[in-house]
């Protein structure tokens, strides 16, 4: 038996190798033919590549599959590698569009070879979640939230928390603070809000995707923060709204600029966007928005595209997709817990999309 084995394998080896080679050759030939077809046919398939933010990924991937159903010749791929990676890739020109939760900084914009536009695509919010026995519908003032994260408020029965929670018995329990240890747009939006409402936060910590936290434990991702909050009595953390809704977390109502206590919801986030005028750059921070009924920790998420696209076919397909996304696409947002853009914003984005061009040719009629 032993002596036979190698002969058997050798006999087997040749056909296997031949089959593999044959497969390889046909595979190469196939893709070669495909690209040849594309070059000759004018109404061929278009495939677009994008990369960036992870936060809007569920919505974007829904958009892309829906859009592909309606326009079978357009295939859009999106890699959710993070906003930082999205910005780097669109600057390097390795993708057709990028995506970012926070607008690009001036330094980053300077690195762009051509005019780069931010296209607001959807809205998201950051929910404050907590774990406190017997306390439902916690209300927090901006001062209390900043104090908790700065480490100046260390107990749940602190006067700053008690004054906004009449009739609630708050336990004499230490507060365990959880934050996102991985760099994220969620952290950027959260710290942007705290910097607006607390000068101490602005001076000592600042705004960014990764921070030097004065207090607390770092957890990886929304699931990590949720895990820490769920398993630790007296814990508080912040997560994306979509995540908070789908995992049934206890969320706090926050006092907005108009003085109302608002729980995070899709309507409250759209209200925040409607309450803040969008400048010509189409980028703005809508945290601590003055709008009525606005949830204070909300933000836009952007697509990043060049004004001038060299490849006309690709440019047209991308412009049409974005047009679809800000109209029909918005109707898909609420189901996935993203907030639709306010009408005024859609009008402004329409104007911007009509400016997109390829050389002299405008991409949209």
């Amino acid at each position: 038996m032993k002596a036979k084995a190698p002969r058997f394998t050798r006999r087997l080896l040749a056909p296997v190798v031949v089959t593999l080679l044959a497969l390889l050759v046909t595979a190469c030939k196939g893709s070669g033919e495909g690209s040849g077809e594309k070059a000759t046919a004018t109404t061929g398939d278009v495939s677009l590549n994008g990369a960036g933010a992870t936060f809007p990924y569920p919505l974007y991937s829904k958009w892309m599959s829906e859009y592909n159903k309606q326009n079978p010749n357009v295939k859009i791929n999106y890699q959710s590698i993070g906003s930082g990676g999205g910005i780097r890739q669109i600057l390097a020109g390795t993708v057709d569009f990028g995506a970012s939760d926070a607008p690009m900084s001036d330094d980053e914009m300077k690195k762009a070879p051509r005019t780069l536009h931010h296209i607001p695509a959807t809205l998201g919010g950051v929910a404050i979640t907590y774990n406190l026995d017997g306390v439902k519908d916690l209300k927090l003032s901006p001062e209390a939230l900043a104090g908790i994260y700065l480490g100046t408020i260390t107990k749940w029965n602190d006067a700053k928390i008690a004054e906004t929670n009449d009739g609630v018995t708050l336990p004499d329990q230490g507060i365990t603070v959880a934050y996102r240890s991985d760099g994220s747009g969620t952290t950027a939006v959260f710290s942007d809000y705290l910097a607006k409402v607390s000068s101490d936060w602005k001076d000592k910590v600042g705004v960014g995707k990764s921070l030097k936290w004065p207090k607390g434990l770092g957890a990886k991702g929304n699931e990590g923060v949720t895990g820490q909050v769920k398993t630790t009595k007296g814990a508080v953390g912040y997560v994306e709204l979509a995540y908070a809704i789908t995992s049934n977390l206890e969320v706090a109502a926050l006092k907005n600029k108009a003085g109302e206590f608002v729980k995070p919801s899709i309507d409250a986030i759209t209200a925040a966007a409607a309450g803040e005028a969008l400048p010509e750059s189409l980028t703005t921070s809508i945290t601590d928005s003055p709008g009525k009924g606005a949830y204070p920790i909300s933000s836009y998420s952007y697509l990043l595209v060049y004004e001038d696209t060299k490849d006309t076919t690709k440019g047209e397909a991308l412009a049409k997709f974005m047009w679809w996304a800000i109209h029909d696409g918005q109707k898909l947002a609420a189901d996935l817990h993203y907030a639709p853009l306010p009408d005024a914003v859609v009008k402004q984005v329409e104007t911007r999309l009509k400016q997109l061009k390829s050389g002299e040719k405008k991409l949209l009629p």
Partner: protein
Amino acid sequence: MPEASTTAITRKPPRWLPWLGGKSNPGDAVFRGASRFFALLVVALLLAMAYEMARASTASFKEFGWGFIISREWDPVAEQFGALPFIYGTVVSSLVALFIAVPVALGIAIYLSELAPLWLRKPVGFLVELLAAVPSVVYGLWGIFVLAPLMAQTIEPALRKTLGFLPLFSGPNQGFGMLSGGLVLAIMILPTISSVSREVLQAVPNNLREGATALGATRWEVVRVGVLPYARSGLVGAIILGLGRALGETMAITMLIGNRPEISASLFAPSYTMASVIANEFTEATADVHLAALAEIAFLLFAVTLLLNIIARLLVWQVSRNEAKGGR
């Protein structure tokens, strides 16, 4: 047949043969050349990686110099970076993991190769090795939802009660920190150390066991006098393998260590490892200095791993030299 073989010998070897390091037989030469190529490929890959990381970290090195290694500051907003808390976190969490895992792993290995009934050895050994097949994110999630509450509510209070006079076991028990991180690492390196150790112990010649038994040694004495000294350098090798895995582990420990770049005497306090900070911040880092600082952390992780490996090798060398002198 003999004729054919003589012609084969008198046939002149091809001209490229010496270039491949061969002398007479082309098959040998090709084999030697190919295997040498593969060996050198690994070395080249390693050097290329080190070079690439050094190149990527120049901006950070220019900005902070050698102070980067001893600075405790890590502030991405103010763009101030220092590596000391991460180096500390990586080294200490790995040592905690070894401290917990090595006795258990060696116990498993000795039991399975020396003491366990034959029918039990295979299945238990297989189950231990199966631990290595669990993805690290699963360990991490298990850590968050099972281990961390258990640590916070039961194990850490008990440790504080009995050993609280040591600074190691003081401070608030939050469940997320150095001890939890080290514990999950220990579970992850356990199968590596125990399965390699078991192989090493099984390779010990049986006549050593028989000899010791013949001299009237008990089971324990056979293991202590006959088996362990012979296997010592192999066992150290197994531990080094485990250490390597502990140093580089990212996902599970990130989910449990608390991710605070601070140095604290207490094992209950949160900490941060080099691999964790890279995994956490690299994807969203856009500032050049921030990226360079993370690359420098990667380079330092490389250096720390190398250093610890060298120390371990020296240890093995020391042990085997003593043996040669008759220290057994």
